[in-house]
């Protein structure tokens, strides 16, 4: 049928509109992490509270843990901090902090003011470990399992919905007896 050929532009247009419509619900700035399902990058960093001690990636094997990337100069970190404190208080998962490109004195003061939910805070002064983790905007939060595999990455401040709908179910799954 000759007329069918003339419907082609309409069909192509409809497909494009469909994609654009779906696109309205997406966030073009959100970058998924390629680390999900892969081993966490190796690191060995000094502790904020005791510069003579270090913690390395392999020290963390055998437990499920949360890595929260923050800095005292970061305003959204301030917003999410009560939530992190709450997670630590409820003992959902051991929380470790990564102090990203910060001044140690300022960082310590920040924790003193707002509360310290972290088992330990690691000092990443030059941001190299942050780059290894694919950090591009603080705050960011990772969940790492017993075998040292990254299971979740959340960019931006944590919200109660994210904790409830993504983190808690994941923790339940990871903590289940093997």
């Amino acid at each position, binding site marked *: 049928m000759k007329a069918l050929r003339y419907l082609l532009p309409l069909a192509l247009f409809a497909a494009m509109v469909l994609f654009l419509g779906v*696109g309205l619900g997406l966030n*073009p700035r959100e970058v998924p992490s390629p680390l999900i399902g892969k081993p966490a990058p190796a690191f060995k960093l000094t502790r904020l509270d005791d510069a003579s001690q270090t913690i390395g990636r392999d020290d963390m094997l055998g437990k499920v843990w949360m890595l929260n990337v923050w800095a005292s100069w970061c305003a959204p970190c301030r917003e999410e901090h009560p939530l992190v404190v709450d997670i630590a208080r409820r003992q959902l998962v051991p929380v470790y902090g990564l102090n990203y490109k910060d001044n140690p004195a300022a960082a310590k003061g920040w924790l003193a003011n707002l509360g310290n939910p972290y088992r330990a805070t690691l000092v990443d002064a030059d941001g190299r470990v942050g780059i290894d983790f694919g950090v591009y905007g603080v705050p960011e939060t990772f969940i790492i399992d017993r075998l040292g595999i990254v299971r979740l990455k959340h960019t931006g401040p944590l919200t109660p919905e994210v904790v409830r709908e993504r983190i808690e179910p994941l923790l339940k799954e990871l903590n289940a007896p093997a």
Partner: protein
Amino acid sequence: MIPELGHLALWLAVGVTLVLGIVPMVGAQIGRADLMAVAHPATHWLLALIGLSFVCLLVSFAANDFSVLNVASHSNSALPMMYRLAASWGSHEGSMVLWLLMQAGWTWAVAVFSRNLPPAVLARTLSVMGLLTLSFLLFVLLTSNPFDRLIPAALDGRDLNPQLQDPGMIFHPPMLYMGYVGMSVAFAFAVSALIGGNLDAQWARWSRPWVTVAWAFLTFGIALGSWWAYYELGWGGWWFWDAVENASFMPWLVATALIHSLAVTEKRGGFKSWTVLLAIMAYSLSLLGTFLVRSGVITSVHSFASDPRRGLFILVILAITVGAALVLYAWRAPKVGLGTRFEMLSRETMLLGNNVLLIVATAAVMLGTLYPLILDALGLGKISVGAPYFNAVFVPIMAVLVFFMGIGPLTRWKNDELPALAKRLRWAAAVTVLSAAGAAWVGGQLTFGSMVGLLMAFWITTSVAADLWERVRPAGGMRSNILHRLSLLPRATVGMQLAHIGVAVFVFGVTMVGTYDIERDVAMSPGDSTTVNGYKFTYIGVQSVPGPNYEAMRGHLEVTRDGKPVSDMYPEKRTYRVQRMPMTEAAIDSRIKGDLYVQLGEVIKGDTWLVRIWVKPFVAWIWFGCLLMGLGGLLAVTDRRYRAKVPSRDNERTAASTSA
């Protein structure tokens, strides 16, 4: 009061567009001249009301009325007056009012300059334009009201983004929108022809000047944007293939195809349904562009603050407007005739080839722009598509197009012979190869890309010369003066040749600056100098200089060549007081053979500064070429045949077909 007046004017305009959109269209369908006659005065009212609204917005900005949310968000009392006025279109809401003004302006212009059209055609066209205006009026009033109040009023505004505090902001958006919105005229003519069933050469003749003028403005608008980016960003980039840039480029490519396609439809009656489709596509891409910029589906430095709700509204406008047009197309196009006959080697074929290449280029740009969105929507991950991709796919297509650009104008209509054609072109080909080789030898550096670019530029130029020669050379028997024959050339022809030369100039500029651009980053203390490409730059020092709404560190460099002074350059580093944004103002000395481009970096130590110096050969040719392109188009529009009255015989013939 004034903002409310502006707001009211927009609501009244809704009423006018409802009348304009319905009454003349009905009148054309049932043959009532009095109903059709409503269109003309309606367009006057529309322009008056939207113009009033626009003026109210301008006044609010000029008077620093910070009780208007838009003014408080985008202006400041210390902002110089010209930028306060330009800030009226510096926001999403304000720019939509500019869009509406352009739409009302074009609608009015069609009413005023088309008196010799058959009443039914004009009535339908104006009705369609009224409906298009209505869709955007509703968009502004329901989702993007620029007259929203801020209670209590702010004490002062948040200032216009410092990157927009530039003369570019005054000229680039209006030119661009003239072009974008101007595509709606071709669209309206096309839809009107589809409704009335009168797709013929007359339709093409009416549409062509409108498309050409809109295309010329779009060319100027895009060129201004590119030039602005070049001197504003501080490092001389002039095209990034950013999604918003592509959003303006795609309608331009299709409009270029449309101009060439209309040439065939107008003269030979061919390609009718294809031309109609192109006319629909051009405006569709304008709509797509505005969707991409305002919806937040893509990331861009140019995009306005995004709001999915607004995006949805525009998507609905896009879907209904273009969907309806394409349904009409599917209904009417199969019945359209084949046009006149032409052979395989003919100008018609060349122009069809031009169209294929331009549409493929448009598709390539669209593919690259939307691909990240498509993959993300399908859950296949997130990628970025940037300049490396676009340059890789676009340039080869353009190279082929340029090759045909040289051959096309010299090919005869309907039927040509290859040996004769080759004979007309042989000198052009020879001179092209020699000139390109010569230029490369003088430049001292040869890359594949630069060779292709030079060949392209010289090919266009020599073939235009060959075409000119064919038209003015003394023929056997006729001893007429060459100058006389030159003066007889129709403006449409000269316009075409000028526009094609513009392309050659553009390609030459792009090639030269792309191949021979030199950058030198140096640490300079007062008295230090460095020589780049024969130019000696001597650093004198910096001093602190306050501006109207910024503080600046102004550097001073003296430039000499062979001991003779060339210029003084004053690059600045500014900090705008309100938004505390640091901005680099590069110092540019623009000359025919190239630009000297100096950027003040940062302090290294004490009074030693990092200074970046570029010598950019022939870079201004890029925008000069665009200027020639647009001027060529405007010249072509002033051709005699568009100013002549349409013979009454045609009026009767088309009047008879309007009741179809």
